[in-house]
């Protein structure tokens, strides 16, 4: 049982160590600073495209939206146009809410059962996972966008703005970016849920713990570099600009901690398309959410629809004609 999280934990630790010693001990800066990041990005892009193309290649034969509200029917019955949309506009809003606010997750409830005189099953609103998931995803997004500062020169205005907002709480020097600790804490919350909630723990596999440990590793090394070890930012910027302009350059003063961070990020990118992290792409294509409930109003075509044998009326009447006539039921052929 422990192997489900001990192995991924050890793996992430070893991966970090691999890059750290590779750079500090063996001087493999080019491997960990240039070669692997390029390979990782390629694996991410190619893998992502293959996966999405694979999904898109599969048919959507039937409209099967999950309807979470009143259908469009009689004019005086109020339709729930978002949860049970019959138009593309409604679907669009439904998807926006799903993607940006995790609307379905917001509904989450927790069931409890009391074995006593009333034997009541109760359901309470369970908002913590929603909060944790939102915090995690948005913090990750902000961190990711903030990192664009390393890959752009001059740094675009919106990134400056984002940084200013992210650093709105002034604490010491360098100023604190809220997104960093939020990302770390949210990931730790998701991890604790996996370990402590009996149901979630039972279903969790190593593949569920690995990305969590990886992201914790990334966040922790990032925070360490910014606030504690004070890495050579100028050197890093030179290096990242070298990567995006395809003129790789290895600065001298940047140490193992940075390469460890970069390697974990590379692993995350390369691992992404072959893992459950692809829910990022899949959520857009989920047929129960992205289709309008209008299949009684509009005909939809199944690309592989084929004819099937049916028991025809003629066969039916041939079989039962005498009985039908005797019972006074109308028949086509009186014989």
């Amino acid at each position, binding site marked *: 049982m422990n192997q489900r999280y001990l192995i991924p934990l050890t793996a992430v630790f070893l991966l970090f160590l691999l890059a750290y010693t590779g750079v500090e001990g063996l001087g493999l800066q080019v491997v960990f600073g240039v070669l692997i990041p390029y390979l990782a990005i390629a694996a991410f892009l190619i893998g992502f495209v293959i996966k999405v193309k*694979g999904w898109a290649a599969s048919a959507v034969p039937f409209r099967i939206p999950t309807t979470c509200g009143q259908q469009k029917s009689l004019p005086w019955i109020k339709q729930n146009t978002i949860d049970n949309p019959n138009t593309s506009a409604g679907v669009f809003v439904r998807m926006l809410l799903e993607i940006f606010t995790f609307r*379905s997750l917001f509904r989450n409830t927790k069931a409890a059962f009391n074995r006593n005189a009333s034997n009541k099953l109760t359901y309470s609103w369970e908002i913590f996972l929603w909060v944790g998931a939102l915090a995690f995803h948005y913090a990750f997004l902000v961190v990711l966008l903030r990192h664009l500062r390393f890959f752009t020169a001059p740094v675009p205005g919106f990134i400056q703005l984002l940084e200013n907002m992210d650093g709105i709480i002034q604490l010491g020097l360098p100023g604190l970016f809220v997104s960093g600790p939020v990302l770390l804490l949210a990931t730790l919350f998701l991890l604790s849920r996996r370990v402590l909630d009996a149901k979630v723990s039972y279903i969790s596999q190593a593949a569920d713990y690995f990305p969590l440990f990886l992201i914790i590793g990334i966040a922790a090394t990032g925070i360490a570099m910014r606030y504690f070890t004070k890495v050579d930012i100028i050197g890093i910027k030179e290096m990242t600009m070298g990567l995006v302009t395809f003129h790789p350059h290895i600065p001298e003063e940047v140490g193992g901690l940075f390469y460890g961070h970069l390697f974990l990020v590379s692993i995350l990118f390369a691992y992404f398309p072959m893992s459950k992290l692809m829910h990022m792409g899949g959520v857009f294509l989920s047929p129960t959410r992205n289709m309008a409930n209008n299949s009684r109003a509009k*005909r939809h075509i*199944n690309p592989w629809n084929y004819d099937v044998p049916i028991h025809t009326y003629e066969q039916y009447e041939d079989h039962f004609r005498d009985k039908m006539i005797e*019972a006074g039921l109308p028949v086509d052929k009186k014989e």
Partner: protein
Amino acid sequence: MADELTPDEALDKINFHPRSNSKSRNWLDTTKSVQIRPGMYCYAAKPESVETLGLPYARSWNPTDEDWKLPENWQEILHEGIKERLERFRTFKIFMDICVRCGVCADKCHFFLGTGDPKNMPVLRAELLRSIYRNDFTFAGKLLKNIPGGKRLLGSREMSLEALKEMWYYFFQCTECRRCSVFCPYGIDTAEITIIGRELLNLLGLNIDWIATPVSNCYKTGNHLGIQPHAFKDMLDFFVEDIEEITGVDCTPQYQKKGADILFVTPSGDVFADPGTYTCQGYLILFKYLKEKYGLDVTWSTYASEGGNFGFFTSHETMKRLNAKMYVEAKRLGVKWILGGECGHMWRVINQYMDTMNGPADFLEVPVNPITGTRFDNAASTKMVHICEFTADLIKHGKLELDKSRNANRILTFHDSCNPARGMGILDEPRYCIKACADHFYEMPPNTIREQTFCCGSGAGLNAGENIELRMAGALPRANAVKYVHEKFGVNSLATICAIDRAALPTMCEYWVPEVDVIGVHELVGNALILPGEKKRTEDLRMEPLPGVEEE
């Protein structure tokens, strides 16, 4: 049913802590955990029924036997089956790939809530198949399967006989109610996975008899119960006699009438078993009223005498084969459009599949209610209207004379049936009809109604006798909510718009909440509707004294 658990014993078994409740610490360890237990499974399909439909590998086999008499190349058949379905259904492919196992669905399933069996968590039901998918169809799976411990890390496994048995056991412990899909952040619909899982099992002849025999009956005879045409008429004649005794009015329906305005199709459960039969009497009374008052011409058909579609629990193809009859018959009779009775999965099939599979219904007209002039634009293509939409429209326009007091003894609550609620969204129409026909109506708690409604525990072909323990466990969340309103408001009647509900919920009530009756919405309509020329009614459709009449 002497070995049936008492409600107290069933409640003692509930435990939401998987590790203490499960013999295996890891669900991947199939051999240690799969045990097909009496009370929790349905009997295997009879070979004759499988043969009628020309489905593969008809044979007699027994789920509790070691040997399932599988074809030699069964793994290959399944592998090809999965491959084909990954291309045919984007749902299947995406749902196999993107689950993050967040566990939100876990405590949404009535079977998990009622049994505590961790493999009844929707995520794990899907993982049973997903673990095979990962092993055989993904890059990571192919990469890791030959490395020691690799499979364990990924959560993948090979298609073994044990894995197959487990899939069979748990795919027939899912009522395809879709409650989990409401809460899933990616809209993963376990019902869709179950549908495809069962379709795969059918490739090996592994169906259950409570599905296969109705399907075979429906195919040959026109309805699930295998009621032959003359017997179907006999049964309705019987209702006609009862109605005449109660109201003094002859409500004899028409059969296969060419050129009628509307073809009416309802689940045969309404014709066959109490309390659905009372709902059926309600339809007859309504149609008689409309005929007398407005000249509306409705016909029934013995050929298309089944609205329900157990093919839906078999495979997409079988569903299509059974569903085809409605259009075939409507065309032959030359009606204008089709009216559908109160039924759960029937309406999911009509709403989500029918037009795509068996349309276009261009020989029919866009449904217009000739009495009110309402055009049912939401059914412009299928040309099929739900009877609750139809009746609600009539009531709204004041076209029905209703005497609510006849239902005054009914303190009602409404059970949203899963399929119409989550696969269609018919929520307010039946409530409107109920409130027009009765005065006392109370909702169950919000987490148990509308799109969050709980299954009756017997849907998707699981309403057999031999799996009663499973059914009662699955019905617990629904029953618990009924019990709440029963105790709080004195609710004594559970209204619903599904024939399976009308068959399953009385057993549930008897077990968990005695003193609550199950009633169809159109039984309430039938009671309340004042038929032209009727005598003074003293009994309701169940031939019980009307409220206020007892004392006279």
